[in-house]
């Protein structure tokens, strides 16, 4: 088939699939169901092939079986000790058999053990810089309200100092961290009016945070729709069908 024709057919199917999948916004229908199943089938089939070609074959099978020399390349010896991984991996599927389900705990235990050991260091590596950044300077070291415009001469000096506006921003951040943390004190009853006010403000601050996250999420969903509309009206209709 002519590559141009093939490409046009491929794009047209993409357009029909897009309309099919969005048709659920009107109501549940068979056209949507059809394209949903096509999508799931394609994704599943692709995943199987990709897992074998991109992962299992190069990372496990080729190491186990070795390879014969290709033109200009070198062969590699096989190490059959890699075959041990197969029965260990297969044990995971024993979870479907009541009598032998205990076997599935062996690979799960290995994975959990490795993961738990890694987490000790990972936790510190992930959160220690964030602990530090949650405790910024709240006392200004320069008594000018705003940071002046940077020049090549004062660039390093600016970074060393905290200006009043920056200190206020840092203070808000510190208060937010403390208020939000206080909201999660569930072990003791907070009777003081002050602490009740702090936890309440923590709840409101959390809600503001969730609102910001929701706004960002909505923008992303819009962008995905815009991309699909661009695909249909510009890439398919305008550029391919009308040749603009």
């Amino acid at each position, binding site marked *: 088939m002519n590559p141009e024709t093939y490409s046009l057919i491929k794009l047209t199917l993409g357009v029909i699939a897009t309309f099919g999948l*969005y048709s659920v*916004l*009107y109501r549940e229908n068979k056209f949507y169901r059809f394209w949903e199943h096509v999508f799931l089938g394609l*994704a599943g089939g*692709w*995943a199987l092939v*990709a*897992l074998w070609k*991109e*992962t299992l074959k*190069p*990372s496990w099978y*080729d*190491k186990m079986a070795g*390879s014969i020399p*290709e*033109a*200009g*390349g070198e062969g590699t010896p096989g190490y059959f000790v890699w075959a041990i991984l197969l029965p260990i991996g297969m044990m995971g599927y024993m979870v479907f058999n009541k009598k032998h389900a205990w076997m599935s705990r062996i690979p799960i235990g290995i994975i959990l053990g*490795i*993961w738990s050991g*890694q987490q000790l260091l*990972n*936790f510190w*590596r*992930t959160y220690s*810089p*964030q602990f*530090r*950044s949650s405790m910024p300077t709240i006392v200004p070291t320069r008594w000018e309200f705003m940071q002046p*415009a*940077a020049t*090549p001469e004062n*660039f390093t000096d600016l970074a060393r100092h905290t200006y009043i506006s920056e200190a206020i921003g840092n203070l808000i951040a510190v208060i937010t961290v403390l208020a939000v943390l206080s909201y999660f004190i569930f072990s003791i009853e907070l009777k003081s009016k002050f602490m009740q006010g702090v936890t309440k403000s923590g709840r409101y601050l959390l809600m503001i*945070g969730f609102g*910001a*996250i929701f706004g*960002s*999420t*909505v*923008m*992303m969903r*819009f*962008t*995905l*729709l*815009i*991309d*699909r*509309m*661009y695909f*249909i*009206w*510009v890439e398919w209709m*305008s550029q391919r069908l009308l040749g603009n």
Partner: protein
Amino acid sequence: MATPQKVPGSLNIPREALFAALFVVCSVLVFVSIELPNRVSNNSADLYKVLKGIDKTKPVILQSDWTKSTRGESGAQFDALVRILIRERVKIALMSGADPQAPEVAREAIRRIAVETEKVTGQPYKQWEDWVFIGFFPGIEASLQSFSSNLRNALSANKDSDTAGVKRSVMESPVFNGINRIEDISAYIIVTASKTSRIAIERLSGKVTMLGLVTGVMGPETYNYYQSGQLSGLAIGLKGAYDMESMMAYGLNTPDGEGVIKVSNAKVTDPIEGYTGEQYVNLANGQKYIVPLHGAIILLITAIVLGNIETIRQRRRRNG
């Protein structure tokens, strides 16, 4: 989903009408090609600064974990990023760790941009010599842990085709010349629509310069890592893509021929050049999608305002 009961005398805008309005707005505005004024975010400016100042003698590892489903955001970011890396002649070691479709999507994008750049510069950007695919790692936690311990050992068994089409160890590629440890690379860049950026930060943070390009959904939680310095630069969502494209088109804090600085930032104050040659593609999907995004947001705000007005009206009517 249950259909809300119609109240006599109220607006009663059906859900389908709102969806239809959204489709119309997004469809019409994709044809409107105007440049909206843009104030570049600090995180995007830092990202651009790091990319422009990157050590070109060492490769970057580019973890691409997005697929066509987030092409609107991640695709625009990835294109801008790869355009910068190829124009700067930085070698790329490409990998994926989240979705089996991700490697092919990324490879296709690199090949397309390599051809596009060659038309301008005349310099080819070849697979194996300039960029290499180092693998798809479904168990990304364990893989990154082994990268962190010994990069050469972790990758020596992974193969890619050389220029003659022969499969060879990726560590034999010119991309990895003189590279043995993760500390030897110039940056670890992750383009993702999921939490894989966090997994990478957990294992590699502090060992190598890390940069992130994430979707709007992942933006708020990834921003913490930028604030704490674990990510040296960050692009978030479509705004991040548009920021990058704007800086590529006009430079950052760089005056044009008439002495006007079109794109500036308060945090990154040193001037950083863009790619001002007319043949370069700078403003791409980030710029094309930002106008419809504004239209969609205005529609959303209008719907919220109308909904609130209607709620107040109904409450007043109930209370007499």
